[in-house]
């Protein structure tokens, strides 16, 4: 759930827009380079964007008695690195802001910052860290997607707390308030997103081994075999 249209004061809206813009520009450059150098990855890029589209359209009930939706940005960040997701996430957010009155144009900068920048980078960092310590691929994918999802909504909470500090308890009090609305609601949804990302990654390992090896998700020959065995098991 993104910050609704008009619900960030103008100064904040502009500041988040300025903060997000370079990431999106850099992302567009990485995306065009990827497509030019590896036209064969266009289809998988489309699939990553499609995954974000599906997941951010699924409003799911949560333990807090309210609803929110996952983001789907972890998968693309793991496959193509986070800059690409800055673009794919922005496209999804624009679609929702223009057609669904969900999120908004004035809050686009802030929502892009949380969902298309911080989420993918945080998820990617966790994934890379776990892989460095030889954690099995699917476990790393799960936590990558989980963190990408949850961190997005932690950032949303921080953004709102910065804009609307509580008159009594200040920033911290407001953070608690917005955190309990967004972040707590998001925990079971982030688990769902992690599981769905693992599911898609398992299907990709079956169907697109060559592509995953080129992208460095599956490593050298020998290791890729042990990984498919792990999946088959």
């Amino acid at each position, binding site marked *: *759930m993104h910050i609704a249209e008009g*619900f960030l004061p103008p100064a904040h809206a502009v500041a988040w827009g300025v903060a997000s813009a370079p990431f999106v520009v850099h992302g567009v450059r990485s995306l065009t380079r990827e497509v030019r150098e590896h036209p064969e990855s266009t*289809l998988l890029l489309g*699939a990553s964007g499609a995954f974000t589209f599906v997941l951010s359209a699924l409003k799911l*009930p949560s333990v807090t008695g309210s609803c929110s939706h996952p983001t789907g940005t972890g998968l693309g960040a793991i496959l193509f690195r986070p800059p690409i997701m800055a673009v794919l996430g922005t496209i999804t957010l624009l679609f929702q802001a223009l057609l*669904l009155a969900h999120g908004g*144009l004035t809050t686009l900068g802030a929502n892009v910052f949380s969902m298309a920048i911080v989420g993918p980078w945080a998820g990617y960092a966790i994934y890379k860290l776990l892989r460095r310590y030889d954690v099995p691929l699917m476990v790393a994918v799960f936590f990558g997607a989980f963190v990408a999802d949850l961190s997005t909504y932690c950032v949303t909470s921080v953004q709102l707390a910065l804009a609307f500090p509580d008159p009594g308890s200040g920033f911290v009090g*407001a953070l608690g*308030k917005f955190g309990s609305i967004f972040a707590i609601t998001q925990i079971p949804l982030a688990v769902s997103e992690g599981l769905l990302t693992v599911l898609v990654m398992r299907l990709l390992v079956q169907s697109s081994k060559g592509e995953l090896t080129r992208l460095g998700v599956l490593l050298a020959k020998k290791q890729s075999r042990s990984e498919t065995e792990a999946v088959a098991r």
Partner: protein
Amino acid sequence: MSRNTKINLLLLLVVAALAVLPLALGLGDHKEEPFTGADGEAETAITEIEPDYEPWFSPLYEPPSGEIESALFSLQAALGAGVLAYYFGLHRGRRQGEQRALERVTEEAAAGAAEESKADRV
């Protein structure tokens, strides 16, 4: 059913359970309006903190009813699901095509070898 398929189905089942449990356990019962959007709750929280705050911009286009809105949300999900299904269908078809081509080549080679041995005997 292969072990692989079973694991995939299990993953889907857990996701479904995670979505259904809050509803089945009635975790929204303590609220006046159960299971509203978290973004709407945040708007309420904002007006609690700053009662004077007025949103200074409204969406350029707003779906005229809840039905239209859910239709557009389903459209978004359907678009995404369609592209994903195309991707996996295409790759499955390619793999099957490659496998069949491979089988045909080995069959032809075997048939060729059989004919050769027959010719040898004669």
